[in-house]
């Protein structure tokens, strides 16, 4: 369960979010639409605990995002992987940070269909491959809460469909920001549209 209570975020004088309130029941998937600059990424980063709201509060399973971070997976606009390490080394490192067995690294590389690339340096991955690798990173601890920002960017149709499958699972609360209206509507339990920092 994710609770966003009248959250505002200012960057200097600019109001990127204006009193946004959202409630996502446990296990449901919320899709966030909105034009460029609407505040989608800002909202997602606040829910993930990367930036703090100027006003308002966020609860993830009753805790602050920072307290709940062991149970949150975040996929941002960047892969957050180290380019000069191989895919497998990267994921093993994150297994260590999240306290899950190193076997999970191999398992998730398979799941996102990158088995053949597991010994490749992350720097050499293509855009879509790197997006899949990033997905493997954010799912590695099988989080109960998943926050993904434009997951379909750079993916071909088949991969995007497979992606939708991987992201959603039973009892996982998910927020997805996307410009892909069709695919978004398909996986959404609820839909929110942001415009100039407000929900519509």
């Amino acid at each position: 369960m994710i609770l966003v209570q009248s959250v505002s975020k200012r960057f200097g004088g600019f109001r990127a979010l204006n009193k946004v309130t959202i409630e996502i029941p446990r296990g449901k998937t919320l899709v966030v639409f909105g034009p460029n600059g609407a505040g989608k990424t800002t909202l997602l980063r606040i829910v993930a605990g990367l930036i703090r709201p100027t006003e308002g509060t966020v609860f993830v399973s009753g805790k602050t995002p920072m307290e709940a971070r062991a149970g949150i997976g975040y996929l941002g606009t960047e892969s957050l992987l180290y380019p000069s390490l191989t895919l497998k080394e990267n994921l093993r490192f994150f297994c260590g940070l999240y306290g899950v067995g190193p076997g999970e690294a191999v398992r998730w590389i398979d799941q996102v269909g990158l088995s053949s690339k597991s010994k490749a340096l992350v720097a050499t991955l293509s855009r879509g491959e790197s997006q899949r690798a990033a997905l493997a990173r954010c799912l590695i601890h099988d989080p109960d809460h998943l926050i993904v920002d434009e997951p379909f960017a750079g993916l071909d149709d088949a991969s995007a469909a497979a992606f939708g499958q991987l992201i959603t699972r039973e009892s996982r609360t998910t927020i997805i920001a996307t410009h892909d209206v069709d695919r978004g509507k398909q996986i959404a339990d609820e839909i929110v549209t942001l415009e100039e920092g407000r929900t519509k």
Partner: protein
Amino acid sequence: MRTAFAIAAKDLRAEARSKEVAPAMLLFALALVFLFTFALPPGSGRAPVPLPRAGSVGAREIASVFLWSSLLFAAIVGFGRSAALEREGSRLDALVLAPVDPALVFAGKAIANFLYLTFIAILVFFFFVVFIGVAPGAILGFLPIALMTNIGLAVIGTLFGTATQYSRAKELLLPLLIFPSVLPPLLAAIRLTSETLVHGDPFTETGWFILIAIYDIVFATIGAVTFEFVIRE
């Protein structure tokens, strides 16, 4: 603590492949040492130099100032690069998001920086052996000094290296913040190193070692406690 070592190991492995930090440090240090050698008479590290006249300094004191200045410059280059590697592509976010104590992230980064520095220090020392004629055996005295001093340098370098990544003026700010902050251990290291070069033994002045130890403990603690505020918003 295992997390800290994992982070340090990750840094070292990435460095072994991409070689983005240590070679730059080394090149910088060696270029400085090379220039400094022109200021010193040949053999000034080995030949018995007459006691310095009152108010003047001996060649060995100058040598130890040179040694530590080249290490300091190299350190600043290295700290900036190693912090930038983590900051590029917002990768620090991944460490903020992971359920690990920021103090351990700090420790991990500091350990990596410490190892780079120590590696460079040893190489630079042998450069002094070759070009200035410092006795090779003096490494026994130099090593404990370098190990202790590098702890403090790595701690401050990690803290400020990361902090300045969040600024538009990082190239200006990093040296501006580091120079004054590391003055105490640097003075101690210079004094102890010149003792080593003169008497072959740094342990005659334990007071300076205590000063470095206090510095290391104080700033390692401050760094571990405050790193959270640097990397988290």
